[in-house]
């Protein structure tokens, strides 16, 4: 069917559950497929434990369709969905008999956009409602993007190659976005309200704002704030007080052995008793980033690709409020990453990224996934051994429509555990841990 066949296009819209008036322009259609696989070469997990990730294969295979419809000069809508073949971690080989692949569907995009001055490159005000990919740090290949990924309390950082369902947290449940380029020359402001759909408690709304400012063609600065879970769908779930049923830290103990609840902290008081400190999953994140392109200083020689030699970095504060014991040092709630696009004379895109995050809490986000604002019990290697993360990423588009790439990294990869033993533990927690993964994708 050709696109100009509008009656059938109407049928297509009906299939997607969207009703639009006559279209001002032809809709655009896109499709992609991919094969991705790799292996964890070394993991800290105890040998022969169920979640022993040593030599575990990781990967997924899938496809997606997407289309966008320009209704008129101001209105646009986008739809996209995909499906992929994934598997939970194999774990220890003794668990392999419960290892199997399965199909998962996902929503890539479902939004409409209104632009007051149309869709020119530097259009003015735009409002987008629905779900759409959003990434404020276009340089980050793996590490970073702290503002919109992961929790505040506990401050578990998210990265890795294998977002299980290939849906990055930075875009999930995007409710609204206002795009304000041109307010000042080089200034872009994104305001958004994200509905939580990834982690329990669901449907809380986080309000965030991201500002980008291009001071010079060689220098770009950005900053943002995220009032994480500012509006709770169920207050007792987001801020559980003293009474909760959420899965907790399982015997997590702070100094003095006083931590025994997933909901609150008890600390000794001057009278010799215990003060109960309650908390919340909600909190405030701050973010700052930069992007420097030194090529500009030398006239942007054509031998280099547009992004080569770019140095970029990001830092964030995961929670501005202190709590005793677990969140009493703000310096340990600040992840910092630095990345560099290695010059390759357009042969490929090669990036190096490194991160430092000095949190001494467990990186296991399973309690948080179940509604606890406190970290999981410490276990495994010393938390000091996972302060540094690194990632090497290489990619290239060949034949115009085929993407090939590879990544080697020691990052925050979480596989979720095996079929019978769920965990939010990171797979890589010592300096000798790493994995590799390769991918080819074909798109139009």
């Amino acid at each position, binding site marked *: *069917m050709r*696109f100009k066949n509008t009656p059938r296009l109407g049928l*297509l819209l009906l*299939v997607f559950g969207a009703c639009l008036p006559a279209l001002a322009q032809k809709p*655009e*259609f*896109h*499709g*992609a*497929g*991919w094969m*991705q*696989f790799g292996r964890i070469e070394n993991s800290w997990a105890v040998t022969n434990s169920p979640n022993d990730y040593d*030599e575990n294969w990781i990967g997924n*295979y*899938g*496809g*997606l*369709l997407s289309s966008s419809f320009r209704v008129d000069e101001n209105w646009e809508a986008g739809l*996209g*969905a*995909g*499906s992929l073949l994934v598997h939970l971690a*194999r774990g220890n*080989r003794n668990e*392999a*008999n*419960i290892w*199997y*692949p399965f*199909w*998962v*569907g*996902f929503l*890539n995009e479902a939004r409409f956009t209104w632009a007051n001055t149309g869709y020119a490159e530097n259009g003015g005000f735009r409002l987008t409602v629905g779900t759409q*990919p959003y*990434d404020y740090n276009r*340089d980050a290949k*793996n590490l970073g993007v702290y503002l919109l990924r992961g929790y505040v309390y506990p401050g578990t950082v998210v*990265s890795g*190659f*294998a977002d299980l369902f*290939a*849906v*990055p947290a930075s*875009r999930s449940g995007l409710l609204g976005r206002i795009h304000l380029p041109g307010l000042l020359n080089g200034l872009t402001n994104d305001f958004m309200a994200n509905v939580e759909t990834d982690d329990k408690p669901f449907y809380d709304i986080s309000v965030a704002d991201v500002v980008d400012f291009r001071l010079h063609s060689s220098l770009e600065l950005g900053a943002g704030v995220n009032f994480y879970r500012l509006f709770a769908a169920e207050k007792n779930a987001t801020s559980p007080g003293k009474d909760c049923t959420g899965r907790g830290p399982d015997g997590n103990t702070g100094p003095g052995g006083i931590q025994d609840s997933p909901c609150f902290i008890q600390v000794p008081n001057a009278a010799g008793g215990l003060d109960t400190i309650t908390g919340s999953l909600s909190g405030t994140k701050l973010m700052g980033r930069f992007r420097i392109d030194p090529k500009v200083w030398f006239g942007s020689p054509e031998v280099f690709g*547009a*992004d080569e030699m770019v140095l970029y970095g990001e830092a964030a504060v995961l929670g501005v409020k202190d709590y005793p014991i677990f969140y009493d040092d703000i310096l340990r709630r600040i992840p910092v990453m630095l990345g560099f696009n290695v010059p390759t004379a357009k042969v490929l*895109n090669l990036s190096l990224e490194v991160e430092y995050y000095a949190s001494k809490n467990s990186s296991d986000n399973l309690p948080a996934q179940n509604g606890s604002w406190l970290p999981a019990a410490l276990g495994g290697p010393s938390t000091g051994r996972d302060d540094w993360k690194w990632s090497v990423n290489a990619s290239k*588009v060949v*034949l*115009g*429509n085929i993407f090939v*790439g*590879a990544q080697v990294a020691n990052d925050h990869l979480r596989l979720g555990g095996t079929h019978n033993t769920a965990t939010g533990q990171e797979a890589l927690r010592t300096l000798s841990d790493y994995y590799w993964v390769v*991918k080819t*994708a*074909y*798109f*139009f």
Partner: protein
Amino acid sequence: MRSSHLLRSGFPGCSAAMLMAALVASAAAEDGAKMRIGGAGWMGYGSIMASSHDTTGGVDIVGKPLISSGAQMLLEAQPGENLDIQAGLGVGGGHALAFSLQNAGGYSPFGVGPYVAQANFTYHFDRDEQGATFLRGGLFAYDYAKETQNLGLYLLRGPVYPGYLISGFETKHVLPVANTLGLQFHHGSGAFQQDVLFQVETEFYPFYDVSPVYLAAFQGEAFRIGGGVNFHHLIPVDPDLTTDTTRFRYIDTTNPAAPDTIQLSAKGIKLMANGMVDMKALFGGMESLGPEDLKIYGEVGVIGLGGLFRDDIHLGSTPKYKKNSKQAYDDLYGPISQRMPKMIGFNLPAFKLLDRLAVEVEHYGAPFQDDITKMTSHTSSNVQSVMPQDPDSAISADNIRWSVYASRVIQNHIKVSLQIASDHYRPGLFVGYGDNVPPSTQAVLYRPKDWYLMTKVAYFF
């Protein structure tokens, strides 16, 4: 296309969404690119008409409705002169057979799941009237015997050990939807066609092993003769799973005083030969007949050569035992003659009233139960293994399978099809919500007199 946007998102956690974001932002597959969109929907209805299934405990699978439905969309693009890309998604719904009135009231829930209809690229090194050479990768459809509607396709369907066969009503293997994950190198020159496949295992444990396959055929207007070999699971992603030294073992007690341990593996070799003759050509063509009428076709496979030759079996590190594994393979999977399924099909003359009216018959003398549960269950109590289920209590009762298939396309966009068959249909048996075990997948037709009726209406553009 603004591929720089794609490059910036790079390998971004390599999420599909980010990739797609790049694609959407990019200028649309270039306006000059050739692109087509297609879609299909369907609904199916059927029932087990007769079964010898054990009725102990009130189990009765006869007469229970089997309903299916689904829809899919497909985009095909030719962004470059030598490059084709397909991307398609589908959602299918269906259900297992209800076990008995005592379990969940005698019905089973209707499940709906997504799948990828196509997700592949094809790079053509040449494509002209004389032949074609291309490389294809991803999730794609592959069918080496397009006449086959139900039985057959032994080379690429099912495991080697045990040699379970796969068939049923319009399975993905006979439809134009993705049934293969991997790579295909194709070369064709005149009547000669050959393919090398690297097939990634996604159906049966151990998963993700790679099976190299070679197929060749001479394809004329009125005949085809072909053959192939499948080195099943030759490239394991985890050799310790594919050749499990703790579980995949056979104890030969021929000599009770010195029992012999034989190491088994999911690796194995399949062979296949097939052919087709269009009888119409013998009569110089007949105007009153449809293009598929009077075609006779057949296939024979060898599911596993294990034990055929004297093997060197390596157990442990030292010493290397030299043993004859024939006893093990023959005992578990039958002698080589029982590992050879054979099928023959004939398209009856339908005089253009139907597009196809195919009768197929199969013989397969496997001595083990036609129960694939052990290969597909994934609970701690059901170990996925190359060991077959218990020996068949009536070994020869299910040796003969048969199928009658009829279809017609109406108004170029509606396909109506029907099948009655006694084949390897495994609908799964839903025992109840409290059952943690996935629906078991034994074949439910045990005798030639057991059969089902399936119908489907599909609408496509």
